[in-house]
């Protein structure tokens, strides 16, 4: 168990591509940090630098109180779970799980004990003699987890470990991994492009965009107080509504008239509001036109236009709505304002 510190870590691939711009953050002992961002933003590169599978171009990395820039992956006291499981196809489940221990000169009896324990924890006990090809996707994922858990490392690294599973299994494994991490208390870095995984699993989320950190924060902070329009539209399904508005006389106005919130300054602004922070009702002040009602069972999404711009509203299943003109009101507390040019929160 350990604290992890990245100090001005940068990655430039040999072909000149700067996949990770110099960035710094640290992870507390036992913390579960999720790196999230769109495909190609540099998540894997960053994780692989921590693992030692990729050279660090610049900056320093420490795990515990040890600088590990030039330490072999096997000596970093880490365990990694790969997207495609990366099990050894020729080894049984038992050997797969025990291989890392065997190479660390741990007595066979102790290895066996630990493998049994990990297998029990992951419901793999009756599959120990099987080869990976004789297992289902979920079971392979568990073996990969077992291989990491059995080592009792200082740091777990996960690179999109659930993206090869079907939705139901993904949901189940998400909970299992989180519970396991809680129980073992091992510091973890988890990479995903799935914002739901990020929201549900993380103690802290780091949102990456083209090699840069957009925001670091708890899931609630990231969700409710996005630091940029990028974070606002990347996190949440449906994403935050972003409306071009004006600040006039201390008020944010949409379409030249309706004031929705107070603000300082003057001129154009991008207003962000989560779909669930909007109410509908005859007494509300803003006119809105519903184009499509999306029925989702537990709730409904109303897609339409606000001042000619795309806008989505989330309503509970008990509220009725049909396509056509209605009136809405926006919760001023929930409004986030962004600089229209830079996209950065004001």
């Amino acid at each position: 168990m350990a604290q992890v510190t990245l100090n001005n870590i940068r990655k430039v691939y040999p072909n000149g591509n700067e996949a990770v711009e110099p960035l710094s953050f640290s992870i507390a002992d036992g913390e579960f940090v999720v790196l999230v961002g769109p495909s190609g933003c540099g998540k894997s590169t960053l994780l692989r630098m921590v693992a030692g599978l990729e050279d660090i171009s610049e900056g320093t990395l420490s795990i515990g109180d040890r600088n590990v820039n030039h330490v072999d992956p096997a000596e970093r006291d880490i365990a990694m779970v790969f997207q495609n499981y990366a099990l050894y196809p020729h080894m049984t489940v038992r050997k797969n799980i025990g291989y890392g221990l065997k190479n660390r000169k741990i007595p066979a009896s102790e290895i066996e004990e630990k493998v049994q324990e990990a297998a029990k924890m992951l419901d793999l006990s009756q599959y120990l003699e099987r080869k990976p090809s004789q297992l289902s996707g979920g079971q392979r994922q568990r073996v990969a987890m077992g291989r990491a858990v059995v080592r009792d490392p200082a740091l777990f690294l996960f690179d999109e470990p659930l993206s090869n599973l079907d939705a139901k299994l993904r949901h189940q494994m998400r909970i299992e991994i989180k519970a396991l991490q809680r129980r073992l208390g091992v510091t973890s870095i988890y990479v995903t492009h799935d914002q739901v995984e990020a929201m549900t699993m993380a103690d802290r989320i780091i949102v990456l965009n083209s090699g840069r950190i957009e925001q670091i924060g708890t899931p609630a902070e990231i969700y409710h107080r996005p630091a940029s329009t990028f974070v606002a539209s990347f996190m949440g399904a449906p994403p935050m509504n972003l409306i071009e508005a004006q600040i006039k006389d201390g008020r944010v106005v949409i379409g030249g008239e309706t004031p929705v919130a107070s603000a300082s300054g003057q001129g154009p602004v991008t207003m962000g509001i989560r779909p669930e922070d909007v109410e509908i009702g005859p007494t509300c002040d803003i006119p809105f036109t519903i184009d499509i009602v999306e029925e989702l069972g537990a709730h409904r999404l109303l897609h339409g236009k606000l001042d000619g711009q795309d806008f989505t509203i989330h309503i509970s299943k008990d509220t009725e709505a049909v396509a056509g003109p209605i009136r809405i009101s926006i919760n001023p507390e929930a409004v986030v304002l962004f600089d229209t040019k830079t996209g950065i929160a004001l």
Partner: protein
Amino acid sequence: MKRAGFTTRWLPILLLLPQLAVIIVFFYWPAAQAVQSSFYLEDPFGFGSTFVGLDNYTYLAQSAEYAKIARFTLVFTILVTFFSLGLALLLAVKADKVIRGAKSYRTLLMWVYAVAPPVAGFIGLLMFNQSWGPLTELAKSFGWDFALGVNSTDTAAAMVLVSVWKQVPVNFIFFLSGLQSIPKSVREAALIDCSSAMRRFWDVTFPLLAPTGFFLLIINITYALFDTFGIVDVLVKGEPGNNPLTLVYKVYVDGFRGNDMGGSSAQSVVLMVLVLALTVVQFRLVERRIHYT
């Protein structure tokens, strides 16, 4: 999957005929001929032949010379197979590390594959030329007076060397593609699990290469036994003398030089049985081969 069907029964047979004809005319018919003539003693001057039963075989079994050639062939096959597989594996592992360079590396080595065995033998002949061959010079600098075609050990060494040189590229290509088909993440997992490169190779890489290795083993044994004919032929210059010979070359020498068709045929039959055995082994291995998914 969709299967295409034939509307008439005769069309598929008709389409198969040319292939069947080729196989029968060029493989089965000569094989049958060889089996037949192995039971006869042919007059060297072409005046008919006499049925001698298993005489040709008993003669072979008792021939000290044949036993010597068989022993040499065994040693030759083991050396050629071992070195061409070993060298190729070593090169492939090195090449695999610099994957970017692999392409030029590959073509660089692959061209040797395009060299026909007699040409390879001829190049060997030049390299080992008594008066100016660079390899003769090299051997001389180590105090080894290399005499190709005169000293039988030297000739054997040259035969092994040229045969290995000719076969390494083929093995290299197979090993390299075998290595490159090992998922990157599996090697990376091993990198995290084990700090010793040597151990990783034997524990993870080598077992995953085993299917390729088994396949190549059979291919190489067959190569050393049969396809080295052209190399042997050029290096011994058709003058067996006290030069070492392989079994296949002995068939040729006895049959076409010695005009002993019966004895030569009996030797062919022995080799056919050998090939058959190898084929059975290969099929067994292919059957049992583990398919990693």
